[in-house]
């Protein structure tokens, strides 16, 4: 069972999350766990500034309302090494993420983790921030392997976060695993696909599909789909893929206005298509939702029939997926790869709590 898989991995004893403050100093929020023993669920200490500690406790408690699993056994201690100015709220996201990481909810193995963001409704999991400012401030601190999670206000051009592979913009805590915000009027879902670029630079890249209801149908479906940062040929391929897949869906055409964004807008090949189609189905509320991320690789010459065909680069992609898979992730691969998969591969994924399916067709079974 998956629960036992979840708990089979040892929890970290402590977690650190950093934030570059408005005045340029780097704040480190350290979270650690200890048995509850009738104490408060969250304890926050900020030397010399108890008001900020209380604020941090409130933020963390409110953000916990978006979690489905409640555990009263542990106390989480959060502490700051320096005192931020009272007006600066950009550390809030770092506190929330550190609290999750120390309880094993975020499988992040990067050497240093940075965050910037705040929210007025943490109980809904919304995150806001100033990405352009934050990225320019933090850029001198980020090294190549670091991860930087930034609250998004939709003002940043796509090129800003492509400057560093570890930067992720989110508007909602669930976006870290690609889920749509349950209270937003725009439904946007992400799916991940392996980008093979010769060994060391292999990475998982994401594609995000945002849909918004259209008031009058009848226009050409391809005109309602936009993608920023893509050249014309890639844009055309994205539009054709989505149109054909929605045609297969039956109820997808003429209802939505769509924006597609890529984590890395510059790539070659067609293996992103399955991830794109699945993100579209998730955003339109037409497919079962995985607990974690959806990682897919596959293309098709016949999306209108829902067929999934094989892509190149099997070995490095399998290796990359195994390295990056975390608990709850769903991995979709083309049917042709099934024969070449060793049994140990499936078992290794299962040990990480991820599940794998080789499919010849999208949709149920």
């Amino acid at each position: 069972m998956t629960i036992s898989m979840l708990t089979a991995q040892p929890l970290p004893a402590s977690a650190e999350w950093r934030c570059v403050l408005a005045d340029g100093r780097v704040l480190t929020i350290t979270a650690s766990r200890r048995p509850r023993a009738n104490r408060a669920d969250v304890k926050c200490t900020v030397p010399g500034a108890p008001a900020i500690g209380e604020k941090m406790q409130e933020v963390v408690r409110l953000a916990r309302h978006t979690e489905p699993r409640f555990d009263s056994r542990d106390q989480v201690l959060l502490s700051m090494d320096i005192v931020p100015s009272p007006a600066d709220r950009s550390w809030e996201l770092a506190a929330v993420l550190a609290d999750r990481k120390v309880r094993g909810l975020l499988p992040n193995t990067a050497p240093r983790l940075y965050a910037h963001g705040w929210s007025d409704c943490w109980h809904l999991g919304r995150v806001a921030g100033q990405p352009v400012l934050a990225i320019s401030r933090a850029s001198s601190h980020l090294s190549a392997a670091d991860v930087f999670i930034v609250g998004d206000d939709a003002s940043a051009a796509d090129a800003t976060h492509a400057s560093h592979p570890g930067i992720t913009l989110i508007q909602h805590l669930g976006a870290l695993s690609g889920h749509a915000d349950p209270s937003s009027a725009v439904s946007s879902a992400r799916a991940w696909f392996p980008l093979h670029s010769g060994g060391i630079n292999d990475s998982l890249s994401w594609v995000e599909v945002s849909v918004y209801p259209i008031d009058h149908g009848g226009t050409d479906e391809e005109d309602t789909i936009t993608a920023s940062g893509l050249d014309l040929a890639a844009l055309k391929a994205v539009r054709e893929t989505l149109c054909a897949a929605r045609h297969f869906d039956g109820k997808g055409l003429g209802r939505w206005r769509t924006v597609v964004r890529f984590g890395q807008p510059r790539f070659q090949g067609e293996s992103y298509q399955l991830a794109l189609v699945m993100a579209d189905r998730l955003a339109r509320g037409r497919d079962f939702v995985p607990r974690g991320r959806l990682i897919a690789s596959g293309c098709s010459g016949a999306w209108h029939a829902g067929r999934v065909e094989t892509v190149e680069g099997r070995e490095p992609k399998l290796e990359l997926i195994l390295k990056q898979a975390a608990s709850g992730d769903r991995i979709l691969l083309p049917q042709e790869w099934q024969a070449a998969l060793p049994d140990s591969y499936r078992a290794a994924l299962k040990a990480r709590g991820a599940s794998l399916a080789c499919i010849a067709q999208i949709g149920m079974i």
Partner: protein
Amino acid sequence: MGLFKRFRKPAAEISGLGRSLIAARLDEADSAPADSTVVVFNPAGHARRAEAGRVVRNEGDTVYCFHPGPYQVDLTPFAAAPEIGLRLRFLIDAANPRVAQQRFDLFLFSEAEAELSLSGFCAAVQGALQGELARGALDLPPCTSLDEWNEFRAGLNQLLYTRFGVTVDDCVPVDLGDTIDFADILRARAAASPAIALPVAASPVVAPPVPQVAVPPAAVTPMSAAAESFTAVAEPSAAAISHASLYAATGQAVADVAADAKALRRLFLELPVLSGALRLLVLPDGVEIFKSHQAVLRRLSLLALEVNTMPSLAWAAPDQPLESAQQSRRCAHSAAAISALDEGWALLSRLQLESPAPWAGHEDDTDRICANLEYHLSQRRAARAQVDTEDSQERKEPKL
């Protein structure tokens, strides 16, 4: 007492039995419809099933009648994907002669009130299913393979039998796109939060920014049962004010006396049965497993004792009424204890799936559920939330 006979429930109310109504409580002079089954609970809570017709009842008996079905409902397994659902057909099976108490009878006695409507039951089943999927106890991933579907079906069947006492007849994935329009749901969200400006139709689309104002409370559905922050009500701090106002706004702070009483009644009735069912599990051999099984049973019987001796909601001590903020804190904790109890039933269904039960794999979850029940019941018992006194006194962490 035939005095009020003519005010009795009109026959039309139970005529929906078998269609929109699963079960109804029968009053003194009511007679059960011909194709239904009658369950009579004596004052001690013991049930016996009887043939339909005029009910012979003793003093203090509670009588329900239910229609065995089958019923068909559409469930949404994921709140985020409203256009795909599961079409579930279930029925209430004949009594199992091997058990002392039928689970469905317990469900009726403990959770149904005057009537058990199909829509209310469907909402309860959907809540249980969504919770299990979110916690990862059941898996229904996109592009489900046949093996995964069969595993899901086995888990779902057992969950519904163990938690609600109904037998799943058939369950198929279904496209709900004809009845539910996700686009309309999104439009309603946009209308509810005025900060989102509708993008101009002709211009290329830009995802509207997430508004910074709070959505009206009607749209708020926090998933978690985490009632932790209720403790803040007791703390005289700035944070406490915003917590209190949040819960006042979402309607959770209103002391709901009836809900608290119902929650305690459920715990009183169901905890002994749950612990009895856990005791009956066939476990793998091993001293460690035996010990941890015994420890869990001991904890559950202590919890049942705690429920049986729970102080009343409105009083801090004899002759000392409790202020309403503390009453609502107590209510919140009894509601959270109920959700822990539901998780306990779901855990039992996972343990019952295999024989011998996979106890070792679920040890952590068992411990967590017991700890949550203990925590919420102790908070329900306390008249006021304990302020964390750690800082003022003692308990220094070792320092290097």
